[in-house]
């Protein structure tokens, strides 16, 4: 291997980045979209009525619904609506033999009428959120793969920092219109500019799944009784078992009030009821994650369901739990208001751009050697095809997902599944397209298609629903209007990128001959 520490680190950066770059690009982009998952869901299910938030009313509605529809369930979960998420979500788990997990049922209710929400079936923003860490793979493989990718990202970040010794000097050098040089400058600038975000987001993603990917310490300290660990960390999971005698559950609203008083007015996100029809019913009230940066999983107030007696208020979390909770809270960004949320979104895009530019640089450097030959070696061609399909192809797939949402009939039974199918079919087609078109032409064509698809989204929205831009702006529905405007802006940007690509393609032979000389000096 190469001599010198920095060269070795550059080698590691290059190859780790290449092999996981395509996957990381998709993970970063879908994760970035997930910061607006509620807003995306709102756009994708425009039928869902928004009401002023009234927790007590929502809670009563949910309790009535569950009492009528799932009186014998083992557990109820009630997620209260908030300003961003208008639906009241109730979930229940069937009663089954001990040691087995019952099936989960889930319904979204209108918090005023108490009826199941009548809206087109769609995963909405949840699709991007799930794909971001499950990669559409069966449990737990997707989580493992995405965490592995996060570890590679961590290695790539640190080796990247080591490679660029003049990190701050480099940051202020940007040489536009210099081809390969500009890509490298851009890669460095965007990497350094949001470096704290990159480090935070990468390390926190490891922390989020740490008990899955690094179970050794749990096993060593707790032996086979791993449940004891989770009971220590999340005391609310430690509830009295059902006695088997019927009992009557008190109204949840009064427990809700008491819990809020305990938190000095903090918000409630979720209410869980264990054994709701049993005399030993227990109620756990969970605090909202949006209340603070430090996510405290254990922040609960527990009640007896039949007597209403306050059983337990979780204490202050310990220092390690606070550190872990901060990682979790910072990664999810649920505490973020509109401005901070946009900042998250922009940082996420910057991370995506850093990965994308890295992939382009890898190929660009190696292509120069084969600039004169007409045939590219197979491995370079493979990287080129994967670059195009993983980047511009993903953009097309995302646009296709939104198109499917508006074009599939609202009453179509399998529409939610078909939206997802459309996403993957479009992605597959773009891979096919990339493999039959020559490099630059593939880029230009796919970016143009993506531009058209995105720019047309506000138009289809106007044609197929009554929530077009004019209406949304007039009624102050910023999520709806923001979605349309963002799609429009993305479309314009992709059109600009496609044009840029096409222009650069023309005088390329002349420019490329001059470049190898300057490149050798900084090649690593």
């Amino acid at each position, binding site marked *: *291997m190469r001599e010198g*520490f920095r060269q*070795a*680190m550059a*080698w*590691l950066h*290059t190859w780790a980045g290449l092999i996981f770059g395509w996957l990381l690009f998709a993970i970063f982009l879908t994760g970035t979209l997930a910061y607006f998952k509620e807003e995306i869901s709102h756009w994708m299910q425009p039928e869902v009525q928004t009401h002023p938030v009234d927790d007590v009313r929502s809670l009563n509605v949910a309790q009535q619904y569950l009492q009528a529809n799932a009186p014998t369930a083992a557990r109820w979960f009630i997620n209260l609506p908030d300003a961003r998420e208008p639906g009241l979500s109730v979930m229940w788990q069937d009663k089954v033999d001990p040691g087995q997990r019952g099936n989960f049922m889930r319904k979204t209710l209108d918090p005023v009428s108490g009826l199941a929400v009548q809206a087109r079936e769609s995963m909405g923003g949840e699709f991007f959120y799930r794909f971001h860490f499950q990669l559409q793979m069966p449990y737990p493989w997707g989580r493992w793969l995405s965490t592995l990718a996060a*570890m590679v990202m*961590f*290695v790539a970040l*640190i*080796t990247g920092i080591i490679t660029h010794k003049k990190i701050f000097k480099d940051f202020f050098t940007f040489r536009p219109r210099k081809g390969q040089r500009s890509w490298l400058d851009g890669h460095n600038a965007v990497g350094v500019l949001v470096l704290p975000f990159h480090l935070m987001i990468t*390390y926190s993603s*490891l*922390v989020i799944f*740490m*008990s899955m990917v*690094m179970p*050794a*310490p*749990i096993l*060593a*300290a*707790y032996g086979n009784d791993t449940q004891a*660990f989770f009971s*220590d*960390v999340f005391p609310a999971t430690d509830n009295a078992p059902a006695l088997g005698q019927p009992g009557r559950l008190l109204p949840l609203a009064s427990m809700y009030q008491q819990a809020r008083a305990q938190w000095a007015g903090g918000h409630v996100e979720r209410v869980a009821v264990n054994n709701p029809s049993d005399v030993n019913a227990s109620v756990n009230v969970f605090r909202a994650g949006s209340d603070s940066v430090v996510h405290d999983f254990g922040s609960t107030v527990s009640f007896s369901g039949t007597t209403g007696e306050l059983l337990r208020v979780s204490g202050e979390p*310990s*220092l*390690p*739990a606070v*550190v*872990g909770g901060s*990682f979790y809270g910072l990664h999810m960004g649920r505490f973020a208001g509109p401005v901070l949320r946009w900042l998250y979104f922009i940082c996420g895009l910057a991370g995506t751009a850093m990965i994308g530019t890295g992939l382009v640089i890898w190929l660009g450097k*190696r292509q120069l*050697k084969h600039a004169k030959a007409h045939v590219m*070696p197979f*491995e370079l061609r493979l990287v080129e095809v994967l670059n195009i399909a993983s980047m511009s192809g993903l953009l097309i797939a995302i646009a296709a997902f939104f198109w499917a949402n508006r074009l599939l009939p609202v009453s179509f039974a399998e529409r939610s599944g078909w939206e997802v199918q459309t996403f993957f079919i479009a992605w597959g087609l773009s891979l096919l397209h990339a493999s039959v078109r020559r490099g630059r032409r593939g880029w230009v064509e796919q970016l143009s298609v993506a531009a058209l698809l995105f720019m047309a989204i506000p138009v289809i929205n106007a044609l197929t629903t009554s929530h077009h831009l004019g209406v949304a702006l007039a009624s102050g529905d910023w999520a709806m209007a923001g979605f349309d405007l963002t799609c429009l802006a993305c479309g314009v940007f992709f059109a600009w990128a496609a044009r840029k690509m096409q222009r650069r393609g023309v005088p390329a032979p002349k420019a490329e001959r001059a470049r190898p000389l300057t490149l050798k000096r900084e*090649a690593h």
Partner: protein
Amino acid sequence: MKSKTSLPLAYRFAVTSRVLAAVIGGYLMASLASICLALWLPTARADAVITGMMSSFVFYLLAVLWCFACRSAARAWLGVMLPSALFATLAGVGFWMTRT
């Protein structure tokens, strides 16, 4: 960097060996290090476990960096397995102490 096709077989084996040392050996070392923290930290048991899990990825990172920074593949394995053995011994002592 040279085109991959011109690289000798021995070089490829060495790189594969380093990758295995980094991925598998590194994970082993990180696991053992986190077990040591979980057993030896003088805090509550759950807190020690959380600290162990949270810091394990730094150990993993260091192992990976070492595997590609050192001079040979053999050194890569040595640099991962020696600390692993040390952590395993410490963990064994800690484990024995909690049991008795």
